[in-house]
């Protein structure tokens, strides 16, 4: 079975600074990879996804992620964060025919 590890439970960062949220997965077969964002008191919405092809994936709100097969990683990055990026971020992995499996989440706190 595939599993997802988000290495940081909380990431504090100043506004306009770059940020990287780390995600590692384990799976013996090919998987699809996702990042979701959850703003306070809301459901989850998709930021970006990797299905195949280019390993650098661009998503909404200026976020991007890079799939690294040898490192089994799918880290999320943004070059300059805003206050409004404060949210919970979830990495998820999906194997064909199976349900999506989520990491435990990383809380991004952006301060002025």
């Amino acid at each position, binding site marked *: 079975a595939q599993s997802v590890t988000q290495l940081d*439970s909380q990431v504090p960062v100043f506004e306009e600074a770059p940020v990287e949220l780390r995600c590692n997965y384990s799976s013996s077969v090919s998987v*699809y990879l*996702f990042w*979701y964002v959850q703003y306070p008191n*809301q*459901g*989850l*919405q*998709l930021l970006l*996804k990797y*299905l195949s092809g280019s390993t650098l994936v661009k998503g909404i709100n200026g976020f991007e992620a890079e799939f690294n097969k040898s490192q089994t990683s799918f880290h999320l990055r943004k070059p300059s964060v805003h206050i409004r990026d404060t949210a919970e971020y*979830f990495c998820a992995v*999906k194997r*064909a*025919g199976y*349900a*999506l*499996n*989520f*990491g*435990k*989440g990383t809380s991004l706190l952006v301060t002025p």
Partner: protein
Amino acid sequence: IAGITQAPTSQILAAGRRMTLRCTQDMRHNAMYWYRQDLGLGLRLIHYSNTAGTTGKGEVPDGYSVSRANTDDFPLTLASAVPSQTSVYFCASSDTHSTGELFFGEGSRLTVL
């Protein structure tokens, strides 16, 4: 565009009571899911349904049941609620014939006293 609608948005419930959380989607997705979200544990899959008429158990199915009588509706029932079922519950759907991306409802916050 409604997407996924969950009801109620919030509920306080006495232990031992029966409770059904409702979930309806209008995207004609074949698959639907129920997750619970707890602090420090992320989202854990309770039950899922790959198509109308079929259901399956997820990671934490005990104490919960589901049904999938049609494509649009996927209710989650707690037959006899316990305090450990205090959580935020999210319903989601996906078209498994494409990428399998999940679309989520806004959540139902349940408190069992």
